């Protein structure tokens, strides 16, 4: 194994500090022959693995065997395990070191908005996918959460940074960071969650306070944890990430645990195709996320919060870090939040390109420095969560809604963000009260022609029959499952066979590979669907594959991996008129 270069060591030391002993890759000192470092102190640093791998990817453009060896020395991690972690994540590269890596979205929205033409252009300019022209390489990517400005790309530039390119073309891909895109949002009824989206500087704490910011936290500190949980329970707030679990009940479960340490985690790993509301919240109203997590920490008795933000969301991450720094400076975070005696701090952790890490237990594994493989439940996170402690995991929008509910903003309990994209005039986030219909959402976004199909709730959601476009949306029947609240419209010209196949491909790509039903089922579903599209009647087999994935997969990814495909077949959207 080659030794790490000076630059590689510098990248690692940027996160870990310089090595202090010969045991962790520093100069060998005389005393090192007698005193070893290791044991619990070393193992307790395992959670730094992903930040260090990010540092190498950011600074060097990849992770060489020498660099990984140095990381392993520093953190006392077996090289094989670190390799297993590094190869799990899409944004980390152990096979190539490239100054510029372009991830071009070809998911369901972007591929109908010019992505396919861009592939051809990139292949002409650089070469086939995965090849390099010496400085640049490119890969196709799953949904990048920029569906309001498709087609999108995510660019990693070693030593420079990460940037998102929206409405991408060759010129914009080659350019440096492009500033300014108007956030696309609208509201039907009261704007609660989107009320501050128009603020000129979302990272300005005073501006946030001037429009009611931190009223929720002040009230929470006044009334106490029990009352806060009661308020959230009474409001009927449910998780906005997709599982719709009652937030108050989750907080109470963690608060009731007997433990000295517990955590709150904001799940900001938004990766559901067609979904970008959490990104918009973090970019346009980062303080509401920070305030929400602080309220959650106070309610549950946690003194530490993590925000696990998607690696493809550099702007959201920057905004959150700025907001946290400002909140700390102003006493909203720290050893004594607002003089109340409640200590609370927030750490931002960056995902590395894995849809599965939006699954709460996979997210824990990722923060802990392991492969993002979901854990068996029970035990549930409220009992055994992050670092084995009781943990409340809440989606970004859930926390923002909790802030509004605790701050008694009118309409706070009755509002939801929907992401409308695809074949509409103005894709964007639409805030609407429960009871709104898909048709109303589509009308707000504008469309010159009715779509031939609508996917609701993301790739893990369902295609809706036209009759369902008029069903009031909410939690529970007759509403279709809310999922992430994504509404993707496909116009008359879209090749639906291609779209449904792309969804099957998405799950095949994103399965963690741990359990057989999902690892093999997503592959068989993809292949069998191809045969169906080619004319074979494979509906029976696809049903059977769907059933075992739903019944026997470890986590929600496998359990929902057939939803969209099954619904498309049921609606006759795929495979001609069968």
């Amino acid at each position, binding site marked *: 194994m080659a030794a790490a270069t000076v630059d590689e060591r510098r990248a690692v030391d940027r996160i870990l500090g310089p090595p202090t002993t010969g045991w962790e890759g520093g100069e060998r000192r005389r005393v090192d022959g007698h005193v070893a470092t290791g044991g619990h102190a070393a193992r307790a640093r395992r959670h730094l693995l992903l930040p260090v791998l990010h540092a190498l990817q950011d600074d060097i453009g990849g992770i060489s065997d020498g660099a990984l060896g140095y990381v392993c020395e520093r953190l006392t991690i077996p090289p094989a395990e670190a390799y297993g972690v590094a190869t799990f994540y899409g944004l980390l590269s152990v096979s190539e070191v490239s100054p510029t890596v372009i991830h071009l979205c070809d998911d369901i929205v972007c591929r109908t908005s010019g992505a396919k033409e861009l592939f051809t252009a990139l292949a002409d300019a650089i070469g086939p996918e995965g090849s390099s022209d010496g400085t640049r390489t490119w890969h196709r990517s799953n949904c990048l959460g920029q569906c309001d400005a498709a087609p999108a790309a995510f660019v990693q530039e070693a030593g420079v940074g990460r940037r998102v390119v929206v409405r991408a073309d060759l010129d914009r891909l080659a350019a440096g960071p492009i500033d300014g895109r108007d956030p696309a949002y609208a509201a039907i009824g009261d704007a609660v969650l989107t009320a501050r989206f128009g603020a000129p500087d979302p990272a300005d704490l005073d501006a946030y306070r001037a429009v009611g910011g931190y009223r929720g936290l002040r009230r929470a500190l006044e009334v106490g944890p029990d009352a806060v949980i009661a308020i959230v329970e009474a409001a009927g707030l449910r998780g906005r990430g997709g599982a719709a679990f009652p937030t108050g009940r989750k907080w109470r479960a963690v608060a009731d645990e007997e433990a000295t340490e517990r955590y709150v985690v904001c799940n900001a790993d938004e990766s559901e195709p067609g979904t970008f509301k959490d990104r918009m919240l973090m970019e346009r109203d980062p303080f509401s996320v920070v305030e929400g997590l602080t309220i959650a920490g106070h309610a549950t008795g946690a003194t530490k919060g993590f925000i696990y933000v998607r690696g493809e969301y550099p702007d959201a991450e920057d905004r959150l870090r700025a907001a946290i720094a400002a909140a700390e400076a102003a006493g909203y975070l720290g050893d004594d939040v607002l003089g109340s005696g409640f200590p609370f701090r927030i750490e931002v952790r960056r995902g590395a390109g894995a849809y599965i890490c939006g699954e709460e237990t996979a997210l824990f594994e990722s923060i802990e420095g392991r492969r993002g493989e979901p854990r*068996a439940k029970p035990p549930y996170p409220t009992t055994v969560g992050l670092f084995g402690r009781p943990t409340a995991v809440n989606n970004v929008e859930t926390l923002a809604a909790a802030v509004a509910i605790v701050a008694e903003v009118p309409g706070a309990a009755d509002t939801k963000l929907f992401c409308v994209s695809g074949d509409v005039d103005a894709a964007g986030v639409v805030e609407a009260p429960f009871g709104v219909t898909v048709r109303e959402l589509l009308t707000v976004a504008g469309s010159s022609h009715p779509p031939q199909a609508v996917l609701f709730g993301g790739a893990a959601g369902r295609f809706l029959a036209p009759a369902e476009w008029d069903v009031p949306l909410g939690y529970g029947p007759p509403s279709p499952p809310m999922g992430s609240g994504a509404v993707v419209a496909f116009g008359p010209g879209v090749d639906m066979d291609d779209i449904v196949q792309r969804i099957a491909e998405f799950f095949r790509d994103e399965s963690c590979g741990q359990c057989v039903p999902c690892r093999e089922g997503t592959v068989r579903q993809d292949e069998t669907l191809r045969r169906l599209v080619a004319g074979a009647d494979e509906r029976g087999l696809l049903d059977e594959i769907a*059933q075992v994935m739903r019944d*026997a997969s470890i986590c929600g990814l496998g359990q929902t991996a057939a939803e969209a495909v099954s619904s498309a077949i049921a609606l006759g959207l795929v495979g001609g008129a069968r």
Partner: protein
Amino acid sequence: MTGRRTVEVDGTAVAIEPGATILDACRAGGVDVPTLCYLETLTPANACRLCSVEVEGSRTLVPACSRIAEDGMVIRTATDRVRHARRMILEFLAVAVDLTTAPELLEAMAVYGADPSRYGTDDGSPRPDAVVDNDLYVRDLDKCVLCYRCVEACGDDAQHTYAITIADRGAAARVATEFDVALPDSACVFCGNCVAVCPTGALMVKTEFDMRVAGTWHEEAQTVTRTVCGYCGVGCNLDVHVQDGAIVKVTSPFDHDVTAGNLCIKGRFGWTHVRAGVDGA
């Protein structure tokens, strides 16, 4: 809660100790539940899902090997849903990997009526060759079902060597060393404890591999003699597999309280001298 619990398995009440799993309860009740990734000496990996059963009140099927049985649980192991899941899992495995040296799985496929042929023909993509990079054991990834047993045996559950891991993800996931280096260049200490736990013959001692290739491996003609390893004073039990008067393999019983099936390189592989002189060496 302390004291014994009672669960219902396929309509019959079964009394179990606290902490017992659903699998324990099923076995106590005489109900057969197939397993693949589960092994008594290892932490359940929850990966194969072959032991899935129905538990009343649960939305999805439940892995019997790892779920702690709760008092009053109503468990069903032979419903259509359970049988369907098991059949599909077996078909998925049979399509993806070579199960010819996994007789228990082949048997289960017959029991559950698994028919891998309905997934269409082989896509023709090259299947990996067995990796022979040392004299002691062989890795045939085409036979690997990713049960995690070898990784666990190499790591936290037995050996604490951590030479192998699961690398990549999804369908590309595979057992690997760091940067896929050959085993002699990895942290491997050649204890062979990964070989001992492999359920499909993806890991095989080289003598067995070579004899199978040559067509001279006849398990039915072998005798197994239990003895105690003479290399040190730990007292590991050895099962010495002998064919035609020659040792062909050494294993250790999983239920032995000293080894739990594990050995070191000497116990498992240090027997070639026995025939020295006899074979003219």
